[in-house]
């Protein structure tokens, strides 16, 4: 029984055509379109009988071949004029020659591939542990202080993001007690920034402190000063006259 090369052995219709031409043992330029079409269709039909899936490319090529064949059968008197029509058979042969050119290179690349595989290399060494951190970042006009301040601000923001302290231990703040504390602070420091008084981030403490400030102000003990909108607010003791 003749050994049948199945369609899976081919890389597309051009490959199959080259195979058929080789089997016919003729020069590619001398191929008779009739013969090759016959062979090709035979092959496709055999594959169909074997229930092999035939990719659409092969069918496209079959129809192309049949078209070329039918054109070659027609009398070609009517295309004498200046319109140049490329002979579809020639086009196909050109394509085959072009394809064959690369196909024939494949074995030499396989040889090169095999040869190269006889030599081994190793992966590059991981040099990262020797890396000196010397990447200079262009700071422009920024100074180290700016960066430090930015970092401080960041930490502050981070701090505010934290969930409020939820210690349950009931520590009672009283406005009266806080009043005295604030007076003491102001006696010592004379002038103080409003925000400085809120040194504990608990709701009670903040509320009590705020109430104290209001209370002291009401009692005319406290002088509250702000130079402009959104500027810092300073607190000082009103000189008791």
């Amino acid at each position, binding site marked *: 029984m003749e050994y049948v090369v199945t369609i899976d052995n081919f890389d*597309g219709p051009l490959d199959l055509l080259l195979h058929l031409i080789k089997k016919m043992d003729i020069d590619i330029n001398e191929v008779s379109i009739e013969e090759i079409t016959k062979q090709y269709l035979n092959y496709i039909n055999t594959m169909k009988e074997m229930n092999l899936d035939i990719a659409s490319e092969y069918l496209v090529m079959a129809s192309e071949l049949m078209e070329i064949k039918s054109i070659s059968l027609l009398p070609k008197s009517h295309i004498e004029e200046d319109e140049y029509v490329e002979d579809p058979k020639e086009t196909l042969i050109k394509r085959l020659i072009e394809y064959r050119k*690369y196909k024939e290179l494949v074995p030499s690349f396989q040889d*090169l591939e095999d*040869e190269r595989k006889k*030599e*081994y290399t190793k*992966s590059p060494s991981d040099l990262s542990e020797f890396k000196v951190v010397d990447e200079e970042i262009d700071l422009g006009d920024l100074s180290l202080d700016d960066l430090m301040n930015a970092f401080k601000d960041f930490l502050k923001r981070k701090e505010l993001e934290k969930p409020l302290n939820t210690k349950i231990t009931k520590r009672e703040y009283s406005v009266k007690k806080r009043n005295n504390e604030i007076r003491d602070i102001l006696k010592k420091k004379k002038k103080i920034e409003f925000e400085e008084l809120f040194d504990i981030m608990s709701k009670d403490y903040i509320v009590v402190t705020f109430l104290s400030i209001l209370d002291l102000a009401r009692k005319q003990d406290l002088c509250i000063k702000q130079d402009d909108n959104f500027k810092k607010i300073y607190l000082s003791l009103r000189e008791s006259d």
Partner: protein
Amino acid sequence: MNLTAVIEGILFLKGNEGISVEELKEILNVDEPTLVPYLDTLKKMYEEPNRGLKIDYLGGRLKLTTKKEHKEYYEKLTEEEISSTLSPAALEALVIIAYNQPITRIKVDEIRGVSSQHLVRKLLLKGLIKEVGKSDQPGRPNLYGTTSEFLDYFGLKTINDLPKIEEPESLDEETNLFESKYTETL
């Protein structure tokens, strides 16, 4: 400082990534005429039969590799054959790209007469080809070209070392005429 020894060390560390002559020049802070003798010395040293390594120029980069003749011993180091080769179809696509780069996938399809989509993807994944730009054609398809890894894979120094294509013997009469005329006028 013995630069030959330094180069040897660099090549060892760089492994299959290799190093280009340009990079070496910069690291060693020498110009090419100064560098070449050091390289030659190192190369000669490795050519000695009692050395197990050699310097190869692959894909435009100097690399330290083992010698072919010792392959059988290295193979014993692995339990099984692990080296896989490219399929003929993939090679075909790769060869077409190598000789026609930059080239679109559609053009590869045209030459092969069959879709090369999965082959191109495979070759991209293997790093043997890469996108090198966009074609002006409608849809601006990607253009592909081969990489330094491609050259290394086939043991080629530069792209000029690709095997020459034997042009089919069928020279048109036109070309023949032209050539004969040309020789006459000379």
